[in-house]
Every structure is written in structure tokens, then in C-alpha cells.
């Protein structure tokens, strides 16, 4: 550390390799075929796949803004070198938004959510459900879709402004933009807290419309946040290997590793808070959520903890594991898969019942993952290639070069 070589700041541009483009297009094409085929084999399952896969990649985008916002409000310098990655991640939001609206429309006509059934709030109908009728003021289609559009719209606005300001800084320099983005970030965090809570209730929690849990939105935040930081870590490592990012050293990786490690424990804490309290109090309307998951999805219930808690906890415990590229991206990949799996486990039992159990990772699920994943990679890396890879005039860039822990 004492005689560390401090690299020079050079403008770099990322070039998307042809192979990555081919892979993205192949994933999109094959995924779309599989997703559509899956949908026609089983509407519910196809829709569920569309929902949770889109949610997952939308979550990565949102995690990108959260990352930028948190670094801005805390005056952090260490992450400045690679901030273009979370910035690029946010550019997937409009596409995820379009697919979310598409999903909402198909869900409405296909009664994907139980509370969308006709007559369910009508006391004279045989479909009448007293509990859902009491929630109709909140769970009704017009209000629901307005909330979803508003939430994604607000995120898009903040993401666009923050990214645009940051790109402008490459030209003008100075600290005016730093201050402006700090204000935007603080405002984003406030709006995010409200919109995210509702978004997670609307898209995920209301799949089991009788069930409720106050911590649910915090849990979903933990999910996307760990996945988002893991994605950033993977991209940083892969770009370094491809010859970019001379200004990033193992100290920066160490901090990314710490975030993955710490927030995997945070996720487990939130998981435990929800599970233990419901288990202990043993109130039937609450335990039903875990009964379904424990009885029909038992191996996955435990796999969830193995992927998202035990793996990062044991594999990233040491200092070396966080600083070495191989171990870092291995764990990052495990938890990215783990949280995708967790989302699957959140959606499927309510959406398709025991059915997903017989062929768990079926055509629809894999197709959805490939389609949205391919789209996400294509959009994110194309947008990353359009701009400077290093924010050369960021006021904190120099400090981040000296980052040593």
C-alpha cells in the first residue's frame, strides 16, 4: 500500500464485443420462443414467469439508481471509478416498464391475480370473497395499474436526470453537478421508499391476496439490492479482465465484496424476521404462506438459504476472498442466481400452486430468464459503450484512485 502505483486518469471507451451481442440476441430469440410456448402450455405459469423475470431485471436497474443515490448522499469516493456501470444498468428501466404494462394488461384479461376475478367483490356473486372485498379500495385494477406506472415513471425520471447530469460532468467538470445530483439522489430515496413499498405489494404480495406482512417490501429491497451490487461486481471484474478499468484495484473489489457479504446477512436478517415471527405466532392466515412453500417446495425452501446466506457467508468471509477476482465473481454469481430463485419461490406457489413443483425450472421460467436477461445485457452494454467508461472530471475521482483498505 505504501508504494502503490497510482494510475493516470485516461478517458476510456467500452466496445461491445461481437460475441456478447450474438449471445444477447440468441438469448432474446430463444427465450421469447420458450416463453411464448410456455405461456400457451399454461397461461398462469407463462405469466408468472414474465412477472418474476421482468421484476428481477427491473430490480437490477432500480438497484443501479439506489447505488448511485447512496454514494451521492454519503459523499462516497471509492465507487466513482466504476459509476458508469450502475448508470448503464438504469437504462433498462423504460423497457422493463413497457413489459410490466404489457404484463398488467394480459394479467387483467387472464385474471392472473386472484383479486382480479370478476364478481369477487360482489356480495351476490358466487365468487364473492369477503376479505378481498374489504381491500377493494386498494386492490382494484385502475388504481393498481396507475400505481405501477407512476412508480416506474418516477424511477425513470430520476435515473435519467442523474445519469444525464453525470455525463454532462465529463464535459464541464466542477462541483455544481455533484451538488445537483446529491439533491436529486436525496429526493429519489424519499420517492423510492414509498413507490417501492407499493410496487412490491402490488406486483408480488397481492398474488396471495389474503396474506400480508409488513416487512415484505424491505425483504424485496434486500433481494434486489444484493443482486444489483453483485451484478456491478461481476461487470467490474469482467471489464478489468478485458483490459479496461486500470483505475480499479483490489481495494475497490474488496469494498464491493463487503457490500455483498454484509447485505447477504441483511437479507437473511429480514428473511428471519419474517419467517420466525410468523412461525412463532402461528396465526393461520399468516402461516399459510410458509406452509405452501415448506410443503410443496421443501428442497427450494432450504436451497434458498443455502444460496443466499450460507454461500456468501462462508465463501466471502475472508479478506482474500473479497479481493480476489475469481472468488468474488463466483459468490456474486451464486447470489444473483439465489435471489432470482428466491423471487421464483415468492411468485410460483401463489400463482400456480403445487404445479411448479413437478417441473420446477420449466420452459416458461427459463425462457423468461433468457428473454429478459438477454434484453437486459443488450441494453445495458450498448448504453455503456456509448459514453466515457470513466467519469474523467468527477471531483472525487482522484480520491478513489488512492483508495486503500
Amino acid at each position, binding site marked *: 500500500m505504501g508504494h502503490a502505483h497510482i494510475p493516470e486518469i485516461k478517458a476510456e471507451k467500452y466496445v461491445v464485443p461481437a460475441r456478447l451481442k450474438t449471445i444477447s440476441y440468441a438469448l432474446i430469440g430463444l427465450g421469447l420462443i420458450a416463453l411464448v410456448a410456455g405461456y400457451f402450455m399454461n397461461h398462469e405459469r407463462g405469466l408468472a414467469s414474465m412477472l418474476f423475470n421482468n421484476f428481477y431485471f427491473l430490480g437490477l436497474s432500480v438497484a443501479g439508481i439506489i447505488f448511485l443515490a447512496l454514494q451521492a448522499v454519503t459523499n462516497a469516493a471509492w465507487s466513482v471509478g466504476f459509476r458508469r456501470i450502475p448508470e448503464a444498468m438504469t437504462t433498462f428501466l423504460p423497457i422493463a416498464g413497457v413489459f410490466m404494462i404489457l404484463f398488467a394488461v394480459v394479467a387483467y384479461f387472464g385474471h392472473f391475480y386472484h383479486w382480479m376475478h370478476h364478481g369477487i367483490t360482489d356480495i351476490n356473486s358466487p365468487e364473492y370473497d369477503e376479505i378481498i372485498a374489504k381491500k377493494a379500495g386498494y386492490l382494484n385494477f385502475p388504481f393498481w395499474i396507475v400505481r405501477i406506472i407512476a412508480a416506474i415513471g418516477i424511477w425513470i425520471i430520476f435515473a435519467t436526470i442523474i445519469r444525464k447530469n453525470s455525463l454532462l460532468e465529463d464535459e464541464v467538470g466542477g462541483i455544481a453537478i455533484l451538488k445537483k445530483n446529491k439533491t436529486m439522489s436525496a429526493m429519489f430515496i424519499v420517492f423510492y421508499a414509498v413507490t417501492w413499498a407499493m410496487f412490491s405489494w402490488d406486483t408480488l404480495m397481492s398474488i396471495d391476496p389474503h396474506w400480508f*406482512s409488513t*416487512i415484505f417490501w424491505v425483504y424485496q429491497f434486500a433481494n434486489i439490492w444484493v443482486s444489483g451490487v453483485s451484478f456491478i461486481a461481476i461487470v467490474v471484474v469482467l471489464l478489468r479482465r478485458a483490459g479496461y478499468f486500470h483505475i480499479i484495484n483490489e481495494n475497490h473489489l474488496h469494498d464491493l465484496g463487503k457490500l455483498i457479504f454484509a447485505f447477504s446477512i441483511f437479507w437473511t436478517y429480514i428473511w428471519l*424476521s419474517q419467517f420466525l*415471527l410468523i412461525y412463532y405466532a*402461528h396465526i393461520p392466515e399468516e402461516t399459510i404462506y410458509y406452509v405452501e412453500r415448506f410443503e410443496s417446495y421443501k428442497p427450494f425452501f432450504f436451497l434458498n438459504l443455502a444460496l443466499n446466506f450460507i454461500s456468501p457467508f462462508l465463501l466471502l468471509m475472508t479478506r482474500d476472498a473479497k479481493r480476489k477476482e475469481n472468488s468474488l465473481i463466483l459468490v456474486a454469481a451464486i447470489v444473483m442466481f439465489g435471489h432470482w430463485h428466491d423471487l421464483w419461490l415468492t411468485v410460483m406457489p401463489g400463482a400456480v400452486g403445487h404445479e411448479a413443483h413437478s417441473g420446477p425450472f420449466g420452459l416458461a421460467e427459463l425462457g423468461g430468464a433468457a428473454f429478459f436477461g438477454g434484453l437486459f445485457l443488450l441494453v445495458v452494454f450498448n448504453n455503456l459503450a456509448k459514453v466515457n467508461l470513466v467519469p474523467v472530471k468527477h*471531483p472525487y475521482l482522484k480520491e478513489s484512485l*488512492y483508495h486503500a483498505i
Partner: protein
Amino acid sequence: MTYESPLRRPLITGKTSYKQITDDIAGPVEAKPTKWWTYGFAVSFAALCLYLFSVGYLLFTGVGVWGLNKTVDWGWDITNFVFWVGIGHAGTLISAVLLLFRQKWRTAVNRSAEAMTIFAVVCAGMYPLLHAGRPWVIYWGLPLPNTFGSLWVNFNSPLLWDIFAISTYFSVSLVFWYVGLIPDIATIRDRATGLSKTIYGVLSFGWNGSAKAWSRFEVVSLILAGLSTPLVLSVHTIVSFDFATSVIPGWHTTIFPPYFVAGAIFSGFAMVLTLLIIARKAMRLEHLITLNHIDVMCKIIMVTGSIVGSAYITEFFIAWYSAVEYERYAFINRAFGPYWWAYWSMMTCNVITPQLFWSRKLRRNLLAVFIISIFVNIGMWFERFVIIVTSLHRDYLPSSWAMYSPTWVEISMFVGSFGLFFTLFFLFAKFLPVIAIAEVKTVVKTSSEEFIAETAKKDGIQVPIEVD
């Protein structure tokens, strides 16, 4: 090679030197107590006497002297217990979590915040001890081998987990605080003469300041920080389990653990501000505990206050959303029932007042910060009262409905517990260095006003630039 951006605010203002810092911090320890210290100590000690009297009365007469009844069987006892445990959280957060986040400003406030943690946990621990009615058999709460007959603890009970959590927390915090004190006590020892040299000599464990001693010191500090970090979360999580594992509407809700932790940090920082705003002035430490320190602590209050606020709103909304009659009633009753004043006091103090800290001007106005910190302390006390009493007082059967009000014993015990807390704090402020001398010196070469000006000159930047 390190470099810190000159855009960052200084943590030490004015001209300073290592010698000057030692003199400034060790000065009050070596000097005779000031007039204000004597008055403050006298008032605190009087309150402590009130505490001892009411505790004595309680123990001679029995727990029946409290205002509890068949429906509200937990009242001020556990309210005040949770209140004091919560206060303690800021110290551990500053010393452990902020260390992990490399927040250099913690060096000026960690010592006194940790001391406050320990004293607050002492105050908190008295409540379960006294609630047992016979504190001399409190060891029955521990899972001791079964030599006293058929007594055995209930491992399924969160109250037992609480005993483990709090005692672990107390031990680790005490050790962490004391280990940090050793080099500073040695500094005082080296400057002292006569009897105090002997006493500080014994207390410093023969610290010799060698490279080896420092290296061991660093390792121990890091291990203790690693142990403390999960403790910050676990203690108030388990306190929240005392309520949330039940089936009582208003108590059983899954957001309780993180929301209690955020609330604890919120109240802890309010208490740190209350104490430090006075201490920095009284002890002339304004150049070490600067307005920038106050500013960031206000931001933490604003963030944790907002977390607490969003948890209140989530609870309220989900109570409605659940469509469970009892859940819905519990929350309507909170806001509009006979204890509405407690609920709205809580909402005003905890949700609205911290939002004032969005204003930079207010964050740097000492009077405003002091007043808001008192509001937060009051609000967080009301939070516990609201959760405990309003959730209990209207039982499922209307024939069991009851109201609760504390008796003079509960009131004087609570007032007296401040006496205990402040007596300990005054003793600490007189006899031990209130700022970690060794630690605050580590930021001189990165964050003092002089050093920042030098860096800025080299970089060709005009300072001060206000980034936030």
C-alpha cells in the same frame, strides 16, 4: 500513500497540534471540577437518591405498588426498559458500524457515545431486575444446572433471549469501551503525579505505548468491532421479539425487528446530541466536536426517523389491508382511542420533527438541534408507551377493558433513572477523557482544517467549497 479530497469538511477546526489535542482533552480530567460540573452532578445525584428511595420502597412493599392491572400488565416498567436500551444503540453503531464504513468523524464522538451506551444499558437492566420483585434470586433467569429444585428456564421465551442478548451486549460494550480507554488512561497517567498517577497507572494495565502494544490494540479493537456489529442489530431485534412473537394485534407484525433497530439508533443519536451539545461547550471542545459532526449526526437522525416513520405508516396501512378486524381496530384505537394524545405525540416528535433536519441551517443551529433532540427523546419514549399500553388496554373482551396510569413509584423511578444515568455520565466526564485522544489524532493528517487547506493549495482548488 493516501489522499483525501479537499472538498470534504474539516473534522478539526483551527490551528492544532498533537500536543494541543492532548492538552485539550486531558485538561478537564486534570483540573479541579468546574462550578457547572458541581451543580450538574449535585442535581443528578439528588435524582439518583430519589431512585434509590423508590426502588427501596418497591422492594420492601412489592411490585403491586406499580399501577399495573389485570389487562395492562406491562406498563412503564417495560416502556422505560426499552427506552433505555434504545438510547444505548448509538454508541455501538458509532464505534462498530461507522468504523466499518470508515467514517472518520466518529473518532470525536465514539468515546462518550460508548460511555452513554453502557450507562443506558445499566439503567435498562435495572427494570427486569426489579420487575422480578426479588432481585437477589435473579440468577434463576439463567440456565443454571438444576440444583434448586424443579426450576428451569424457558428456552422458547424471547424474554430469556433478551437476558442473553442484553448481558452479551453489556459485556462486549464494556470491554470495547475499556480497551479503547487504555492508551488514553496511560496518557493521563504519564502526565499525573502522586496518588492519581498510581490509580491511572493501575487502570492503564501497564500500557507502554510500544509498537507491539499498539499492534495488539489494533487487532483487539477490530475483533471487538466485528463482535459488536451483529450485537447492534441483535439486541433491539430481540427486544422487538418480546412483543412481535405474541399474537396481540399491534405487537405481532413482521417489520418490528428492523424498525426497532432503526428507532433505537434514532433515539440513541438524539441522546448523544443532547449530551454533546452541552459537553463540547462546557469543556471547550468545539474545535474537535465541530458543527460538521453535529451536522452528520442530524442527518442520521433524519434518516432513521424517516425509517421509523415509514414503518409506522406501513403498519397502519397493512393493518387496514389485512382486513383482520382486530388488527384494524388496534390501530384505529391507537390513533383515536383514549390514548390518542400519546399516539399523536409520538407521530409529531418522531415523524415530523426530524424532517426539519432537511434544512442545513437548522442542522447547524445548536439551539434548534438541541430542542429537536429533546423532542426525539420524548417521541421515542412515547413510541414504546403507545406500543405497550394502547395495544394491551382494550382486550378482546370489552369486559376486560382497562386504563392504565403510573403511580408515584413508577414516576419517581423513571425520573430517578435519569439521575443514575447522569451521575454516571458526570463521573465519566470528570475522571476519564471524553474524546478518544489517540483516535482523534489519526485524523489530523487527513481532515484537519490546516491539512485540508494544504491539499487544496497543492491541487489548485479554492476552499472552503460547500459540497452539501
